[in-house]
């Protein structure tokens, strides 16, 4: 078994201008584990996930993906931004799913899924479409392959976006509040697909406000506030035995809102 974490984050700092948004984050995600990141709005969850993908370049610290440094090249103590090519190469094992799906509206569901297979993997149309149809079926939208995103419900769009990421055979999937933009009755279908993925052994990092999902599916829950990790542990500890006042307060607010 490979003991190296799939994602390793060390002492991560990130500023937006004068705002210090990430203040020294450490995180290790082992293979086949599901880590859920929770925390109040503005605590830096999205920024952390985006830094872990180098969509937001981090300022200090390091992100390793399967042992390879992401985003920078280091030569005798100095570091410079890596080439797009190298960044793409390190990033290629990450699949990402966004809150607003970010499908391409001018392509069909199938076109969205096959695009990278064609352009990046350089597969022929037939082979790409075979994989595309398989992936769409896997997330339960096989019958929507030839529809444009505008014709799909939010839940179907998000599942298409998951299929698009899965088609590239990622080793780890990042989700940034994948159900926050959905109507309540559509949340379940997306969470179910994610739960199935976790069951298949996919390594996952999930930023979410769905405490039920975190409690049932996560191996580890990370609670962030003010750009720091305040508490982390198995879901039982986090949800039933919170140690810090801030986590307790956060959970209380959440409970009072959902009852």
């Amino acid at each position, binding site marked *: 078994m490979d003991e190296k974490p799939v994602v390793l984050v060390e002492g991560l700092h990130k500023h937006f201008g004068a705002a210090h948004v990430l203040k020294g984050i450490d995180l290790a995600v082992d293979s086949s584990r599901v880590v859920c990141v929770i925390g109040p709005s503005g605590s830096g969850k999205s920024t952390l996930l985006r830094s872990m993908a180098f*969509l937001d370049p981090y300022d200090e610290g390091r992100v390793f993906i399967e042992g390879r440094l992401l985003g920078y090249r280091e030569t005798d103590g100095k570091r410079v931004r890596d080439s*797009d090519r190298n960044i793409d190469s390190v990033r*290629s094992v990450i699949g990402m799913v*966004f809150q607003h799906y970010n499908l*391409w509206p001018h392509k069909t569901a199938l076109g969205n899924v096959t*695009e*990278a297979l064609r352009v990046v993997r350089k597969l022929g149309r037939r082979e790409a479409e075979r994989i595309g149809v398989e992936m769409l079926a896997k997330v339960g939208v096989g019958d929507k392959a030839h529809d*444009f995103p505008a014709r799909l419900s939010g839940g179907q769009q998000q599942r298409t976006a998951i299929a698009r*990421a899965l088609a590239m055979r990622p080793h780890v999937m990042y989700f940034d509040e994948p159900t926050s933009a959905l109507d309540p009755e559509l949340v379940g279908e997306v969470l179910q697909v994610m739960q199935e993925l976790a069951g298949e052994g996919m390594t996952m990092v999930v930023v979410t406000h769905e405490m039920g999902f975190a409690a049932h599916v996560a191996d580890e829950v990370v609670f962030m506030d003010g750009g720091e990790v305040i508490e982390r542990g198995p879901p039982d500890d986090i949800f039933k035995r919170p140690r810090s006042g801030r986590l307790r307060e956060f959970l209380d607010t959440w409970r009072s809102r959902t009852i």
Partner: protein
Amino acid sequence: MSFDIDIVVRYGPLLLSGLWTTVYICALASILAVAAGLAAALLYGLPLRFAKLLCRVYIEVMRGTPILILLFILYYGGPSIGLTLEAETVGILGLGFYGGGYFAEIFRAGFQSIPPGQIEAARMLGIPRRMIVARIQIPQMLTLIIPPSTNQVIILTKESALLSIITVAELTKNTTQMVNETFAVVEPYVAVALLYWLIIEGIALAGGALERRFGHAS
């Protein structure tokens, strides 16, 4: 007042040769304008302050200078810095880079209309930047950019009449020659107005066809 159709027929070949010159100069200038505008808009999108500044300066200079002055600078000023160009070449370059300043703004607005999340999704899938531009951004921008682009090509074509001043034998120049030789005024100008109208109608039709063909972005 009578309209002497004979003069027009007699000068037909001269007018048609001017028409042809106008058409190919404007076609080449439009291609250059689109290319320069696209390049400037892409450069503007880079996360480099210097690139942004360069584009800003280009757009400001092109927008802030009358096209005639640009043509004079290129045509009469060029030789003093060792740049001697044919009048037609000056016409193509002048109109092309001038139009490029306007196309840059059209493309920039087009690029800005694409939600950044779509680009991020593409980057996360490893799609190279040039492919993102060609396959994700531009196809979606077409609805937005075809109408103002058509307009810009029409404007460029009408501005091309100014090339007569730097001796390019295009439609307006040849018409002036016709006026000078025949002392007729009405026939040449009516004829030339009709010919310009034909070109511009052709551009508008082509633009409309493009819009119908590519105008269904979502």
